[in-house]
């Protein structure tokens, strides 16, 4: 059985996993660190939380642009075309 998952996907997954793990461990074991003021009075909890959501989207876009797929280019049609729902 061949490996179904792309290397780029796994690298990006690893990056996100570390960021998520960092957030969860900081929150659990060093909760005071979340009160650290990053910008004005806005604390790390808000920035890290928003960051996790934004980074997820950025990584997803990177994967969408650079991720390889071993499909035939015929499927490229579905990239930009109009709705093609139903026969």
């Amino acid at each position, binding site marked *: 059985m061949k490996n*179904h998952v792309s290397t780029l996907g796994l690298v990006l997954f690893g990056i996100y996993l570390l960021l998520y793990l960092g957030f969860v461990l900081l*929150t659990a074991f060093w909760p005071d660190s979340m009160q650290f003021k990053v910008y004005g009075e806005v604390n790390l*909890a808000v920035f890290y939380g928003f960051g*996790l959501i934004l980074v*997820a989207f950025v990584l997803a876009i990177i994967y969408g642009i650079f991720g390889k797929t071993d499909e035939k280019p015929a499927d*490229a049609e*579905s990239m930009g075309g109009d709705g093609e729902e139903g026969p």
Partner: protein
Amino acid sequence: MIYEPSVIAVFVFFVFVGITLGLSFYLGRRAKSSQGYFAAHGQIHWAVNGIAFAGDYLSAASFLGICGMIAFYGYDGFLYSIGYLAGWIVALFVIAEPMKRLGKFTFADALNANYGSRGIKLVAGISTLVVSIFYLIPQMVGAGVLIQPLLGFPHWLGVVIVGAVVITIVVTAGMVSTTYVQFLKGSLLIVFSLVLTVLILGRGFGTKELPWDNQQVGNLTFPLQLDLQPEAAQQWAAFQAAMQWQTIESGGVEFSRATDPLTGRQYYFRILGSGYGDRSNTVELTQWVTRTPDGLVSVNGLPLGMDEGQAVLSPVGRVHDVGDSRESTGPLGPISFFDEFSRTQVELWRKVVHREPDGSVTDIYFREIKPGSQVLTPGEHPRFKGIRSENPLDKLNFLSLMLALFCGTASLPHILIRYYTVPSEIAARKSTIVGIGTIGFFYILTLYMGIGAMTSGALDVTDSNMAAPLLAQSFGEWLFAIISAIAFTTVLGTVSGLIIASSGAVAHDLVQSFAKDELGDFYQVRLAKIASIVVGVIAIVLGILFKELNVSYLVGWAFSVAASANLPSLVMLLFWKGTTRTGIIVAVTVGMVSSLAWILLSADTFTKVYGLPADSALVPFSQPGIVTIPLGFLTLIVVSLFTQKRPEEA
């Protein structure tokens, strides 16, 4: 509180239902084959599918539950937003494309792609049903709970309407109509959440008068500042002398209960000494609801009602002090919103329960004032208190929950089947990217909406689920109507996805794991439609039966069970050639049974479901994920190693 049902809300809701049903009947003629019924012919455009992911995934728990939790406890509700979104990373990078490549209609198809095993079909079908039913119950109960304040109908009618509409949607055109309902709901939810957020930023933070500020008892007006109101202080002394007093301690907070010896009417006060900042030496009247054993309900010492001599609870939730001696901040930007909020002092209302020997129960609600900066850090909610405690087991509970949220999303059957509705793997990938963008955007808005509700002056202390609709109401009746209708449509979208996933599990997996031959296309669709009706009716019945229970925790169960039962097999199948048929069957079973058993023996279930004390629970913490997800992986590896050499018979 007593809600005035809004005619506009009923109108907007029925317009939504009308459009939804019209769409279903219009699309109905397209879904005659099983390919059409289960997978919308695999012809949904990726962008539509991406938004439909949002419509499928963002349940009432996400919209109402998270907003409510943030409105009452601050940042802790947002932890769910983070965890629910992070799970999509697993879906995108690991599961999406193989799922599309390996499977056909159901999640069991993908697991079974290389094995052709009846056993895998059976266990995967059962796990789909278990997870989907756990997910369904809170959605249905939620529909009933919502419909009363929002539209003015009784609970059972809400459940029946949702059930009937969803059954119609699913039976007419299966996945085709389900997809478009979810697309519609996803779009509406995002657009109107954005509208709400823009209005919240425009309003900024300001102190405001609330009815609670002028609570009259005799000729006294509470809150009473003894230092600043010398005349009132004298009257207070006279009031004290005329009443009978009792000190009530509940949940670590002290209350003073006054009973009028003439009328028998009772009042619950908090008498604050020094050390309460600008509230030092203040007497505050709490709000309380008493239920007697014979079913009488009184509010603040009077019968519940809107008429003379009756009372309802006052709306609450506001900034106590904007900071820098200002009355209001004026309009704010997306970052300065949090900057300014961190400088404020906010009023949060807390509840304690006081039980009398005669069986009557009083819920006492009182205000606490906390710095905004503290409200924006994790650990305020009782469930997350463990973060700030020294006990490592409490921290494990938090880690376990965050793990289950991360692993659960990509294991939810009703999400996974959406990968079959697109034409190709690349479309599966793109629709996941659109999904992450849409869902992530919504989750970012939850923090604005939650904080906006917290400071809206419109909160109902008894019902955090109403935070988002009441926030909308503070901006106007039309917005309330639209948000209420969307909240209700939210239930429709998610329930349709769950019913179609369950009907697929019955018709495509369970029945076929027993049938001698592959069922014909026509019979499979017919069977699936019958299964949809049956599951829909069961959901209606459960939604009515569980009426009195707070069932939102069942969504948490669904995530834990899905992650423990499904994820190990899905992942190992992709990464380890040694995975065997028996390994998958045993791993799904062990993951499902162990996570379920752990949940049923946990302190959370003991207190909320059985009504037993928390310390009699048999497992050390409530969230199973951190134990049962690794257990699923371990089981799969060990069993696969033992069954390695056997020839694989189907």
